[in-house]
């Protein structure tokens, strides 16, 4: 009746836990496999599967459209690249406006409040149309009436409203005593914000902002409504020329290749932050 059992001097407790882990692993993989098998085997039995496969998962169309769609995706990346930093800056300005303490600057607070309310409440596509067609319609000369400029501005204005609210939640999460303490050390209001509040606040909301980046990455496609031929528009062109939806699946695959790693990265950041806090 040895307490230390067989496998390399493991205790009974360790052996039990190892068995339990193995059992859980086997059950988990069996059930996952069963679900996958059920989907793979049952879906093709549906009477319309051939038609659906031909319309959405057509290998020939996939190969034919992939290179052009990948090239069109570069435009999405470019628009994203110049929008993201501008959103980060403008949102910070709005967030700070919402937090001004001085009574004389109260109009700034009102402006920031109305701004976030309006731009969070209006559908992005309306803002894109309104600014993308409306402002150039006022009679701007080329190249200042470009849909790229005004469409990007529409995205920046809308996304800044959301990101400003995220910043604000970060700013408000810094305990008021820190502000009081900084003031008592002789720091001015601006310095308190700059050296005490913002460095902590911005760091706290990085994971939340990662989610906004992922959302922005997809919403860049909305610019196609006012002309730019980015990946979704190019997929739409193929869709109507080939009468086949596979190009959209190609676009989705390209998007996933970017957004899945980005999402995992955001999750990892969040997990690290939670560990640091606890």
């Amino acid at each position, binding site marked *: 009746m040895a307490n230390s059992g067989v496998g390399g001097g493991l205790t009974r407790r360790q052996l039990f836990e190892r068995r339990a882990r193995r059992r859980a692993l086997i059950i988990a993989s069996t059930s996952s496999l069963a679900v996958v098998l059920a989907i793979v085997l049952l879906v093709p039995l549906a009477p*319309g599967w051939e*038609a*659906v496969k*031909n*319309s*959405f998962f057509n290998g020939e169309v996939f190969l034919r459209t992939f290179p052009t769609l990948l090239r069109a995706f570069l435009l999405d990346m470019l628009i994203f690249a110049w929008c993201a930093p501008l959103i980060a800056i403008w949102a910070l300005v709005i967030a700070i406006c919402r937090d001004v303490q001085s009574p004389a600057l109260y109009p700034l607070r009102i402006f920031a409040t109305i701004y976030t309310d309006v731009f969070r409440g209006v559908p992005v596509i309306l803002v894109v149309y309104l600014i993308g*067609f*409306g402002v*150039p*319609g006022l*009679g*701007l*000369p*080329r190249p200042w*009436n*470009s*849909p790229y400029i005004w469409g990007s501005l529409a995205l920046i204005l809308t996304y800044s409203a959301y990101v400003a609210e995220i910043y604000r939640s970060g700013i408000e999460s810094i305990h008021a005593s820190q502000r009081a303490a900084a003031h008592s050390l002789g720091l001015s209001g601006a310095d308190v914000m700059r050296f005490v509040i913002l460095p902590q606040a911005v760091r706290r909301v990085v994971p939340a902002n990662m989610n906004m980046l992922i959302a922005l990455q997809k919403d860049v496609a909305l610019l*196609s*409504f*006012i*002309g*730019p*031929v980015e990946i979704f*528009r190019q997929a*739409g*062109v193929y*869709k*109507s*020329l*080939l*009468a*086949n*939806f596979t190009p959209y699946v190609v676009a989705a695959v390209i998007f996933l290749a970017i957004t899945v790693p980005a999402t995992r990265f955001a999750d990892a950041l969040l997990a690290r932050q939670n560990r640091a806090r606890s």
Partner: protein
Amino acid sequence: MVRSRILGATGIALVLAFSAGGAYAAGDCAAGKTITDGVLTIATGNPAYFPWVIDDAPETGKGFEAAVAYEVAMRMGFDADQVAWTRTSFDQAIQPGAKDFDFNMQQYSITADREKVVDFSVPYYHAPMAVLTTQSVVDGGAAPTLSSLAGLVWGADSNTTAVPMLNELIAPAKSPLLYNDNTDVVEAMKANQIDAALFDLPTALYLGAVVLDGGVILGQFPADRSENPDRFGLLMEKGNPLKACVDDALNAMTEDGTLAGIEATWLSQNTGVPVIE
């Protein structure tokens, strides 16, 4: 039971005999092949545009496509009150699975790629493509020659065959901007973001005359061009048994001149637009 069924059948036969008026006794071709027995369901766009359908009301039979639809229906043995209209988008027309229309009529160009997924009737219209632009662009020196056109900033409706034609025939120096529908193309032209856009001629004439202030039709590419002739066909579900009946009706209409007559009635202003060589 049996007797009432026979009576019913006789009734339908009588109705058909009266409605067909003897001249077109083709009623049996389509019998049992429509999605609703005794009714021909025709789909059009939402909205349907001038001059294809006047006032977005295909039931009136006014407009080129509405008139063709009723003529085809009549030759297939359907009375005007046996025609039901429904609306679909382009995407609904090509989605896999059962369709909720017998045929769909909204200026679908017949292409080999599309024919892999849906069936088309024989063509009912050969569409010239036309260049819509504004007076200020013409004043700026745009001319109906390929070299002049290639220097313009182009726009088009992304769902149309104007897109490949634009890229292959005109090959503009700057890549074209593409939009969801006619309205957005015109809006971009008003905002001076594009100089010109390519449409089928009847659509271009309508947009230039009614929707766009100062609109000008710079020229047209004739319908019988050798490269990519644009022919409109009725769109049907792949393997639709009605196709033979529809083709027969359209062929007969072409042969006896009815189709040309309808075209002359509704698309008469098409003449007089300069041809781009």
